[in-house]
């Protein structure tokens, strides 16, 4: 059953993915197991296909869309575990950039991993990130940018967040950013893909 869900997700058949998830739930499968072993595992494989150049943006988007649809079913069942505070991620695309495909994929994967996600959307000014951190007290803040033109705003946003006390850990990603750029801008971590973003979030919220 889990294998069938994974395959349906990889080929991006959203209707079938949702139907199979419902079947699995009816058969008593743990929602977290479905999320981890079928959906997240499937998206990891989609990510690998994309990295290898076998999948292009549309194929990846269609699969991500299928995952989103399945997560709509699963989220209420997982929500009991999703933590407040450190289990929360505030995320957004920085000011000057309206690209959100990667960010939305990260959100879906974070939710699958049990995080509560506050999505600020795209073209988000530093002040809105700061306000959201004050309101929600997240364990980590995620900043994304596709356009290198928006890197300066990403740096300004990190600087504004680091003036808070306590300052939240900040992770960055998106095509504009490199690991070196993230470090220069003062981020606490850089993720090169959605799976890495989830691992990094888990690492950054862990008590130190």
């Amino acid at each position, binding site marked *: 059953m889990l294998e069938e869900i994974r395959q349906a997700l990889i080929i*991006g058949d959203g209707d079938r993915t949702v139907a199979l998830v419902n079947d699995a739930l009816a058969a008593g499968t743990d929602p977290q197991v479905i999320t981890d072993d079928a959906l997240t595992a499937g998206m990891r494989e989609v990510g690998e296909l994309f*990295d290898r*150049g076998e999948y*292009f*943006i*549309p194929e990846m*988007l*269609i699969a991500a*869309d299928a995952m989103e649809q399945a997560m709509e079913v699963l989220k209420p069942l997982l929500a009991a575990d999703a933590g407040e505070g450190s289990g929360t991620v505030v995320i957004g695309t920085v*000011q*000057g*950039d*309206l*690209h*959100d*495909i990667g960010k*939305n994929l990260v959100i879906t994967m974070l939710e699958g991993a049990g995080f509560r996600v506050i999505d600020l959307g*795209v*073209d988000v000014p530093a002040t809105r990130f700061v306000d959201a951190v004050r309101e929600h007290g997240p364990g980590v803040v995620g900043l994304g940018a*596709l*356009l*290198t*033109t*928006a*890197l*300066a705003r990403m*740096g300004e946003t*990190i*600087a504004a967040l*680091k003036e808070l006390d306590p300052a939240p850990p900040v992770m960055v990603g998106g*095509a*504009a950013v*490199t690991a*070196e*750029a993230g*470090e*220069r*801008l*003062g*981020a606490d971590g850089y993720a090169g893909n959605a799976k890495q973003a989830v691992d990094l979030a888990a690492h950054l919220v862990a008590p130190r």
Partner: protein
Amino acid sequence: MTSPATAVLSCRVLQDLLEPLLPDEAEVTYLDYGLHTRPVEMAPTLQRHLDALPEPSTVLVGYGLCGNGVVGVESGPHTLVFPRTHDCIGMMLGSQQRYEEEFYAEPGTYYLTRGWLESGDDPLTTYHRYEEDYGTVRAERLIDKIYGSYRRLRVIAFSEEEMERSRQLAAPVAQFCRDRWGMAYDEYLGDPTLLEKLIGAADVDDPDLLVVPPGTTVTQEMFLKDEDLPLRSG
């Protein structure tokens, strides 16, 4: 140029703009304009062409930082000259500074040129292609994800005649984008200054050009000003 040999390696999207600027004897290679959607392939593709040059050359490169696509290219025995801008929009607007002014005035601008319109790289043609490949329902969900955040469609041309032609090509695209996403439409007369500087390469100290000497790897930082990537860590 004082260098023994000069070659031009450029994205095809600049072909119409570069042709009138290039000397007849110029050795020019145009690469698939679709590389910008596959940045991981950009550096290896450029590298292959650089490595294939028969002698150490000054290579005028018709690429910007292009989503970090050029990061990692090694100059080897060659001297590379890039326009110091983030991508081809900056080249068409004439300078990185102008690009940033326009960018922050309305970040949600989707640029179209005659080249893109003629090659079918626009939201409407993409929609039809997705419809064929994936069916109407999925095609609609896909294009909403890809284009749904843009607020303005802008056509760039370099003369009134070209604008007239582009306007006709863009009309159905503009209509589609307005109906589906409420996108505004405007037209912008481009400025070839930056490309003229690149092809002239007369003044390698020009801050608008990036000169990468032999034996050097291209990095993101080379394209950025200090204020783009301020040192905040440590």
